[in-house]
Structure formats: C-alpha cells, structure tokens
C-alpha cells in the first residue's frame, strides 16, 4: 500500500535495510526506490537530506529498531523536515531481520510520544489498513503497528551502484 501510494504521489521512497527493502523489491520495485544495504538507522536521515535537496515528496519506510538507533533524527526532523517528508515507522516491536529479538517498543517505549516530544508537529498512528491508507497523505512521522514476520524473499540482485544510478536518473540532472 505504501509503495502504491508512492507511485500515485510520485514520491521518492527510501527503504530501511534488511527484509523491508527485500520485500519492497519483491512486491513493487521501481527506480525511485532507494534500497538501503548498510548503515542501519539512517533511512530517516537519508530521506530527510533527499527531501531538503530535491524538494520532492519523499516517503521513508523505517523500523522501530532502526529509529531507536538514531533517535536524534526525530529532533532534526521536527526542526528541518519540509512538508513533503513522511517518515513511516513500521513498529513490529522487534529486530525483524535478525531473529525477531524484542525492542523497547514491545514494552514501555512509545515512538508516537517520542516523536511528539521531539517537536514533530504532525505525528500519526495507524493500526489497520484503512488507517494507514488515510494517513499516507500526511507529512511528519507516522507510526504503524504491525505484526513481526518476514516474507520469503530473495536478496536484492542489484548492486549498490545500480541502485544509486537508477535512483538519481529519476531526478533532474545535477548542475555544476
């Protein structure tokens, strides 16, 4: 659904490392998808720099474990994110790509409250498909409660440079 909305909104899509990227590639590959292969925790930051530089609509698909690794990103988003930026945190309360070890959101930590406390003005949450559908027109941070679990999907067959070059070819030619 997120990928479909990204197409409809002509959005660039930055996707978190591990199964999220592999699943996105399997269900809806497009050149406007930037698949992370390393640097866990930085999906939201890459998307923020991209949104600031390009002025485009940008979706980021991130996870609870990755956001917990880079919590300062919520404060930076609060102060600098443009209106086209939407960070979608798929909160499955676990490190889904490494054996589903629990994260702190399984117990006491609430990423919705953390985003608000960081100063993000628009913070949404969704627990059903319909709530998610309605929320994808927004900006800011969207926390989506999902069940843990991964699809049986292969490793992305693209090289990092192919991912980069396909992605940048969707943007206007850089000047200078």
């Amino acid at each position, binding site marked *: 659904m997120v990928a479909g909305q990204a197409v409809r909104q002509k959005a660039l899509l930055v996707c978190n490392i591990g199964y999220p990227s592999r699943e996105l590639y399997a269900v809806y590959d497009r050149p406007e998808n*930037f698949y992370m292969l390393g640097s866990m925790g930085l999906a939201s930051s890459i998307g923020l*720099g*991209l949104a*600031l*530089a390009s002025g485009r609509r940008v979706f980021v698909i991130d996870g609870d474990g990755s956001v917990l690794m880079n919590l300062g990103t919520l404060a930076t988003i609060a102060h600098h994110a443009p209106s086209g930026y939407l960070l979608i945190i798929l909160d499955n309360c676990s490190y889904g790509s490494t054996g589903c070890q629990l994260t702190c959101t399984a117990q006491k930590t609430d990423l919705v409250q953390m985003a608000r406390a960081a100063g993000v003005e628009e913070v949404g949450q969704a627990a059903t498909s319909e709530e998610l559908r309605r929320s994808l027109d927004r900006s800011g941070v969207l926390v989506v409660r999902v069940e843990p679990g991964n699809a049986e999907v292969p490793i992305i067959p693209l090289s990092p440079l192919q991912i980069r070059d396909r992605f940048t070819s969707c943007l206007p030619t850089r000047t200078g």
Partner: protein
Amino acid sequence: MKVMDIKPPTPRQADSDGHSATFGQHPASPSHWIFMGMKDGGIDFAASVPCINLQELLTMVEADPEIRFVPVTREEEGVGICAGAFLGGLRPALLMQNSGLGNSINALASLDQLYGLPLLMIISHRGSSGEKISGQIPMGRLTAPLLDALGIPSWTPRPQQARSFVAHAAAAAWERGTLAAVLLDLDFWKGI
C-alpha cells in the same frame, strides 16, 4: 596504507588570484579561508555538529543563503543527511570534530563508500599538538590512522592554504564519488 595519490595544490598567495586577503576592513581569519574554499568547491549543503573551533565557520555557513544548513544531533546522522542531499542533487559538506569521525565510521563505509556517494568532511582535529584536554588525546591520535584505514584522502592546510586545499578536496570528492577530509589542527585555529 597510503591512499593520497592526489597531490595537494600548490599553496597560493592570498591575492594571487584576484581575491582580497581581507574581508571588509578585517584580516581574513582561518575560518574565512575554509569558508571561501567551500564556496569555491561548490558546497551548497552543510550538516554539522559543533566544535568550539568551528563556531565562526558555522556562523558563516548558516548565514549564507546559498548553503542549506542543517545542524544535526550526531555526526553519523549527518552522514545520512548528506548522502540524501547528494542523491537529491546538492554538494554536501559535513562539519564536525574528529570525535565525530569515530561516531560515523559505519555510515561512511556502508553508505557513502558502498554506493559511491561523495562527501567533503571539514574536521576540527582536537587532540593534536598543544591539546590541553586529556579526553581529546585518544581520538586525536587515531584520526589519521582511521582515515587511512578507510582509504579517505586528507589534507592538513595552514591557514593561507586552506581555501585552495578545501576547494581541491571538494573537487576530488565530486570527480571520484569518494570521501575527502580536511583536518584542521589546533595550530590552524591560532593562525599558524
């Protein structure tokens, strides 16, 4: 490992290229030379984590309407934001203390180097000769070996060389799609 196969530019006289060595009535400070090098190098996006020695430079960068400036909470976060800014068509620089180099290693390797994303790093090198704070010594000592281990070319200019070295480092990064670092030691900020 010696990776710096790019020759440092010949230091030029302050006014040899027609640019004045003064800004208004004031002599150019070390920060001014860095800033002018960033402008010459086409930098139009900057992320930063502060260092006391970078404060004048950060003020200049923030005041420049041609540079999109994003203060970040941690250097690794800045690496991510700069990577996105490059993908989005801008020329980013990351301004930080060398302690932040340690905070950024994984991102520099598994984001910038993996995808071939260029980045100019302007690094205040604490723990260099004359350092008075003991806590700065360990990373001060490790900064050059870490850059070598990562295969990142670095330049350590004196103040009057800074403009051309920074512009050169930026050009090297863009041309090759690589990282480049300019190290500014404690003497640099004293104008030595």
